[in-house]
């Protein structure tokens, strides 16, 4: 298994590249949707707000296979978005991962922003900060917590197997990622290879976390 990595096996690196690409994209999309959503819910009062918060929190526990099935039915040629032909493509995998982690990011962002707003409320009101500016100010001040939230989302997305297989099809050379390869090799009885790939996956996720931590330390030094 080590020789796979060391020999620079093209197929192996293609799988790693695709895994990182899919998960990064999904995290970015989920953040662009989930963070403003979380901030909005944190800062505004509207009818049904409590129910929405309960739903958001609940969706953090959305069973991935259910998400996979829902997206599958949506993207299938026989489904409403069929004409787009997205099933069994990397984009489908990005979509399903984004669907899974957007609630996590939104719910956690909401909590962080709400706590921060409680702290900042009087000062910002005294400074005449309007509703539009509040979102930006709080999200920026919460940036370190937000990075942690992003990492949580990234980790969750990187770990996904079931939903990704359902909508991606685990197609060799096209939609096969690290987690689905591990599942496949396990089912082929190729346990040493599966374990090896698992370790590589963990190391990759650790590296991403280390990079994020490095960015944070640098940033703290420069702007507290």
């Amino acid at each position, binding site marked *: 298994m080590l020789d796979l990595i060391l020999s620079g096996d093209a197929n192996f690196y293609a799988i790693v590249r695709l895994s990182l690409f899919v998960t990064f994209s999904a995290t970015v999309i989920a953040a662009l949707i989930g963070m403003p959503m979380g901030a909005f819910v944190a800062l505004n009062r509207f009818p049904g707000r409590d129910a929405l918060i309960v739903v958001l929190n609940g969706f953090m526990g959305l069973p991935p296979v259910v998400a996979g099935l829902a997206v599958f039915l949506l993207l299938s040629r026989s489904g409403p978005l069929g004409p787009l032909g997205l099933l069994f493509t990397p984009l489908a995998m990005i979509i399903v991962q984004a669907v899974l982690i957007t609630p996590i990011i939104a719910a956690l962002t909401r909590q962080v922003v709400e706590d921060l707003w409680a702290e900042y409320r009087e000062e910002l009101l*005294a400074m005449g900060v309007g509703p539009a500016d509040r979102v930006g100010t709080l999200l920026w001040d919460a940036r370190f917590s937000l990075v942690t939230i992003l990492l949580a989302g990234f980790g969750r997305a990187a770990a996904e197997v079931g939903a990704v297989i359902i909508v991606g099809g685990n197609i060799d050379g096209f939609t096969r990622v690290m987690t689905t390869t591990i599942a496949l090799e396990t089912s082929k009885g190729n346990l040493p290879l599966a374990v090896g790939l698992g370790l590589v996956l963990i190391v990759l996720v650790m590296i991403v976390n280390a990079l994020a931590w490095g960015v944070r330390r640098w940033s703290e030094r*420069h702007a507290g």
Partner: protein
Amino acid sequence: MRDLTSDLPIRFDDVALAVGETRILSGVTLTFAIGPPTVLLGPNGSGKTTLLKLAMGLLEPTQGRITFAQRPRPTSRRRAFVFQKPMMLRRTVAKNVAYSLKMAGVPQTRPRLAGLLEQVGLAAFADRPARRLSGGEQQRLALARALARDPEIIFLDEPTASLDPFATKGVEDIITGIARAGVKVVMTTHDLGQARRLASDVVFLAKGRLCENAPADAFFNNPTTTEAQRFLAGDLVI
């Protein structure tokens, strides 16, 4: 564009504030107008902070009326509030002040920024993360943020309560400077000495009631109410 509207004078007319069953303030009638500093004096829990926030427009009375230059709501941006424990934005000292300028609609020019930092003695700390400042330095940053709004009135809530004497002197000097420049200063304190040093007028509160409202000399030498007398004598006002 310089905000030309004014919210002064601020008139309280039999104002009361209750939270649920608890009366925090009752029967407060007074006026804040342009002039030398007014100190709201009184023991802890007497309602000073609440009165200050009502004057700023951060709270609304449950009874009575407050008018701002005869209008029901404050409209000018030229008022500022310095909290007892000021909240530092997670950015540099300079960026904190720049933020205040931006929110007040004041042009963020380099000379103006530098001038404000100079005024509070924080010029050397411009690029330091604001959260790394000491208590006294943070209080001075809060003052710089307040001054960034080019205020006609500044409210200060126990500005030196958690500071050592050296830091306290620094802050008091800045306050005196602000007052001399024509800005109306309204500040709360429970520190008798500070009141003596800074007050031109004293508003004395005890247990949510406005007990006395008089020029400083008159108040310190001739307190009329029992509560004021006991407070000045150093007794607990229960």
